[in-house]
């Protein structure tokens, strides 16, 4: 499913003293099966943008086309739009409310009025994808650890089998282990089910490691878009927007400045290891 955003503008509290333009003339296209990283400084309009994609807020101007159909064209369409585009908010564990983990994940599929077997199968599959062990299914979600709660909440969105999965900072406030577990689950999801993933993140390392294409938002506009290599090579512009390139790339910039023959387009630790091994091979250190 392709998403096309045409000249999208959103103004909050129009006509009052609190008026604020959150998005201005945003035009974007997202292809089926892409893994997109959406980055930008706080207040750059990322959250407003993703809420539009899910039909939670309506554009002030412009339109969003889902396979060529305007999602705000018919109100009855919105429910099916929300099923096809899954949105996990920041701190999704704050939305948990049911007595057990199982029931909470089943909330979404039940709202879709699926058969009992279908619901059961989807809940099981979603919980497995995020790596929640069977013995926790009957527990209260409030008894779990922070990382587990987050994964249950993400499973709650996943159980609706969305074609596009949007995650707003899924790793904020988690320890490294919890972060890796979630990112691995998202990566597996993208590779196995071939769904489109849009990842909003402040961690340039995560973005560089995972995504195919980066969209940089700045002051309500799309400032840049391209592969991680293309975007992070314009490091000076990104820094002006209050962002940064992955830390490892700064190490390589310094090595280059000191005269070592290293490439400067290194953005992940995996590439860095390879480049450093090559360098060691060349210099022939004893």
């Amino acid at each position: 499913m392709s998403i096309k955003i045409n000249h999208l503008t959103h103004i909050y509290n129009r006509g009052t003293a609190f008026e604020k333009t959150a998005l201005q003339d945003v035009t974007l296209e997202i292809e089926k099966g892409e893994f997109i990283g959406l980055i930008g400084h706080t207040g750059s309009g990322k959250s407003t943008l993703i809420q539009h994609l899910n039909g939670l807020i309506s554009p002030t101007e412009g339109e969003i086309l889902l396979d060529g159909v305007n999602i705000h064209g018919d109100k009855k369409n919105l429910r099916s739009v929300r099923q096809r585009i899954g949105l996990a908010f920041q701190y999704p564990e704050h939305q948990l409310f049911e007595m057990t983990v199982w029931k909470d994940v089943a909330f979404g599929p039940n709202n879709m009025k699926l058969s009992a077997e279908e619901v059961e199968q989807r809940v099981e599959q979603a919980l497995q994808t995020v790596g929640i062990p069977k013995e926790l299914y009957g527990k209260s979600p409030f008894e779990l650890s922070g990382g587990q709660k987050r994964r249950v909440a993400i499973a709650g969105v996943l159980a609706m089998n969305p074609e596009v999965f949007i995650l707003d900072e899924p790793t904020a406030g988690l320890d490294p282990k919890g972060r890796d577990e979630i990112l691995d689950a998202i990566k597996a999801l993208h590779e196995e089910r071939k769904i489109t993933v849009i990842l909003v993140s402040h961690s340039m390392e995560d973005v560089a490691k995972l995504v195919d294409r980066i969209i940089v938002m700045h002051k309500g506009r799309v400032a840049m878009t391209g592969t991680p290599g293309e975007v992070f090579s314009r490091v000076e512009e990104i820094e002006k927007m209050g962002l940064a390139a992955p830390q490892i790339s700064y190490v390589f910039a310094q090595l280059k400045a000191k005269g070592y023959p290293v490439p400067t387009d290194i953005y992940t630790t995996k590439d860095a290891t390879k480049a450093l091994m090559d360098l060691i091979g060349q210099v022939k250190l004893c």
Partner: protein
Amino acid sequence: MLRDITIGQYYPAESIIHRLDARVKLVITFFYILSLFFVNTFVGYLFVIFVLGLAVKASKVPLKFMLKGIKSIMIIILFTAGINIFMTQGDTVLFQKGIITITQEGVFLAIKMCIRLILLIIGSSILTLTTTPIQLTDGIEYLLRPWKKIGVPAHEIAMMMTIALRFIPTLLDETDKIMKAQQARGADFDTGNVIQKAKRLIPILVPLFISAFRRADDLAMAMEARCYHGDENRTRMNEMKYQKADYVAQVCLICYLGVIIALRVAAAKLPFFL
């Protein structure tokens, strides 16, 4: 949708009303509300509307903003009007069918009650729209001070009000966020009968309560960590001092009350006053 609730919201602007001392505004609002129940004629209400209009103009808050507050209590206003129309006994019967009797007195009373409620809401929303919550509670604390002698915990009451007011927008934001999160999971709040609608509130209310308790706990901890203890020996960053405009406002209040009493006395003597 939730942003339509304007009660308790502050509207930043530069105006004479914004600059008035919170204590003066509180006293004026108190007497204004009393006066609404003292006035009993249409001429009297015309006068009140005129004065209120001046105050709205001077406050530089768009009228649209205040009317939004009325929209949220429209049901209460209509309900009151309905009761007054059908339940008031009177001599001049306008309409009668079965047990339903509508009298002229009833219609007049209903109209007056509606005007009263609308004026009440607009008047008190001028207070909250032009006064920051902090100023407001400082003012309340000051006005409650005489009662401390008989054991009224003035400072604690003010502190609780400050905290409550402070958290209204936070909890509204939170509600908005939770509603969106549940909508994203296919929840539907708009269709169905009353019982279904009430049931659908559970996925909002449970997370909202949990978050409210979490916030309360965090705040209590933060206050404790800074050794907060009530009222004794505390000094203020912003001392409250009366300015010239505050004295002028008090004189205006006395004049206003004078006119209201005069109108009431006149109404008793002159029957054509309605």
